[in-house]
């Protein structure tokens, strides 16, 4: 469509909108503007969001058998920009959220080091600090994509909401390790949490020396308890499950632990029958958050909006297709486009009221992109639980309802496994 025609149509849509509002008889009376005549709320010590926003909350699956081991989802389609507000950052834990008194907080680094050390929170904060924006994504994000046939009631939240993005402040783990003096032969770190499950994982020393943060702040304030208060690991670009929260101890050693959550969970069953261990790096993802599943739109102008990220590096391009992948158009990326962080993509769009399927796919600086569902399952097993990053399709129906546009796969019906995927279905 040429520009002139586009703007003419735009203009028409706008005018139509105004006329409609008038027809609906918006009550522009004095009462509607009552707040202009009364004193508002007084100063308050900690700001709360408007009560009118109270229904913007994390999604907790109603089918969970416990709320002390599981995950909940950030409400992606209700958020703007790229930063996930602290109270809406997705959660995943294995034994509830511990309450840790910072007075008694200690971090011990020991094992293959010259000087085993114990740090207080105050000491950690005295080190040179780093603030960076990074996404954290559960390896199980996208697990609803393993459902076949696809869930018609899928939302952007339930599709990709086990990912969030925040500005993290902390001390580079490399500085703490230098302080302790890593001995030759050491290759692995085993970080341990202070939760009841004393959650552990294995992290190669090399990554720790590169860019891992021992973080104590999230979007400018102390970490939220769900995010590891007072101290957690932030491991840029890698699966969330390795970013140990409530960090109490780091064992420096020469072997990985092969802990439960890097063997029984967080290993990937491939289509060829192999099970892959240490699938740490998160492949590129994108999700259109508007218009998305269970939303309702009207004909006329819309800005298609979405989020993209990759654990391999910077997002270079996001494309949108209106014809199930035959042709692609490049969306605009809102700066700054940072490594290992959410990027907001946008595209102006005029919906003509005809049924259409929207696809998006992200590209990163290493040339990776997202597969279609069919391509994804050539490589990953149908019964795998993690790392689903196939293109999410949204179908806009003629009445303006938006539903899951993913295509069913042949073969067996299946449901997600729960746990880190955040949902349980009895199959």
């Amino acid at each position, binding site marked *: 469509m040429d520009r002139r025609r586009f703007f003419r149509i735009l203009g028409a849509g706008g005018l139509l909108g105004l006329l409609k509002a008038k027809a609906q008889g918006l009550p522009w009376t004095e009462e509607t503007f009552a707040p202009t005549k009364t004193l508002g709320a007084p100063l308050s010590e900690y700001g709360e969001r408007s009560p009118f926003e109270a229904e913007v909350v994390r999604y907790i699956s109603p089918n969970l058998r416990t709320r002390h081991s599981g995950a909940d989802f950030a409400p992606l389609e209700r958020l703007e920009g790229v930063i996930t507000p602290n109270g809406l950052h997705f959660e995943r834990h294995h034994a509830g959220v511990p309450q840790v008194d910072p007075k008694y907080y200690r971090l011990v680094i020991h094992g293959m080091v010259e000087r085993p050390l114990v740090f207080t929170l105050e000491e950690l904060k005295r080190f040179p600090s780093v603030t960076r924006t990074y996404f954290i994504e559960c390896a199980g994000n996208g697990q609803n994509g393993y459902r076949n046939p696809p869930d018609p009631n899928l939302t952007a939240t339930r599709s990709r909401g086990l990912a969030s993005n925040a500005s993290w402040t902390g001390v580079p783990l490399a*500085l703490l390790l*230098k302080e302790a003096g890593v001995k030759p032969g050491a*290759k692995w770190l085993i970080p341990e949490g202070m939760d009841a499950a004393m*959650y*552990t994982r294995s992290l190669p020393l090399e990554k720790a020396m590169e860019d891992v943060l021992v973080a104590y702040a999230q979007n400018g304030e102390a970490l939220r308890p769900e995010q590891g208060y007072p101290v957690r690991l932030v491991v840029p670009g890698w699966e969330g499950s390795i970013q140990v929260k409530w960090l109490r101890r780091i064992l420096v050693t020469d072997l990985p632990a*092969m802990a439960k959550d890097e063997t029984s969970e967080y290993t990937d069953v491939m289509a060829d029958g192999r*099970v*892959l261990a*240490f699938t740490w790096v998160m492949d590129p993802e994108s999700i259109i958050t508007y218009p998305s599943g269970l939303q309702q739109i009207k004909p006329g102008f819309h800005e298609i909006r979405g989020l993209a990220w990759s654990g391999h590096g910077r997002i270079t391009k996001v494309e949108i297709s209106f014809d199930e992948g035959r042709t692609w158009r490049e969306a605009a990326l809102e700066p700054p486009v940072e490594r290992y962080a959410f990027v907001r993509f946008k595209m102006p769009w005029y919906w003509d009221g005809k049924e259409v399927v929207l696809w998006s796919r992200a590209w990163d600086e290493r040339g990776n992109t997202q597969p279609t569902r069919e391509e994804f399952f050539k490589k990953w097993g*149908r019964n795998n639980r993690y790392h689903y990053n196939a293109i999410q399709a949204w179908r806009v129906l003629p009445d303006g309802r938006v539903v899951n546009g993913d295509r069913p796969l042949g073969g067996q019906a299946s449901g997600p496994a729960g746990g880190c995927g955040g949902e349980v279905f009895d199959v």
Partner: protein
Amino acid sequence: MFRRALLALALAGLAVGARYQLGTPITEELAAQYDLRPVVLPDGRGLPPGEGKVAEGERIYAEKCASCHGARGEGYPFNRLVSEPFPITPDTEPVEYAIGNYWQYPTTLFDYIRRAMPFGQEGTLTDEEVYHLVAFLLYMNGITEADTPINQKTLPTIRMPARELLDLDPETKRRFPWLTLP
């Protein structure tokens, strides 16, 4: 003399400058006290003394585990623990993944049960009880015989059938060429 003292000072300064002198040095003994539930490595490091017996394990399991994992480990309301000792295939549904068909390292079982079970009463099991439970669960999964002793020495040597399926993620292999799976 004065120059030597200066040099020594400068060297000390350098050594100090390379670090921030933050954090309190502790002995490994003190660190061990902080190490409430030591990590068990696949080569057996971290395993305490003691020995597990299937019959004892069966008794403890019935009392402390069965309510959540099923009388025979069949798994309701929580994870299934017992399965055929054949590795899973791509057609096996995730709810069927259990110790016998999915777990790749026997040491993980000791580490995890001591660390994280029973859910809601973590850290209450003695090392001896953990050994009994490991012995029972390995036996129930058809990995060991009823009289296989489970201890520091034997546990790391037990081969789990699902280990054959385990491979390194190719991206991890590319980034860390030195990395191998134990």
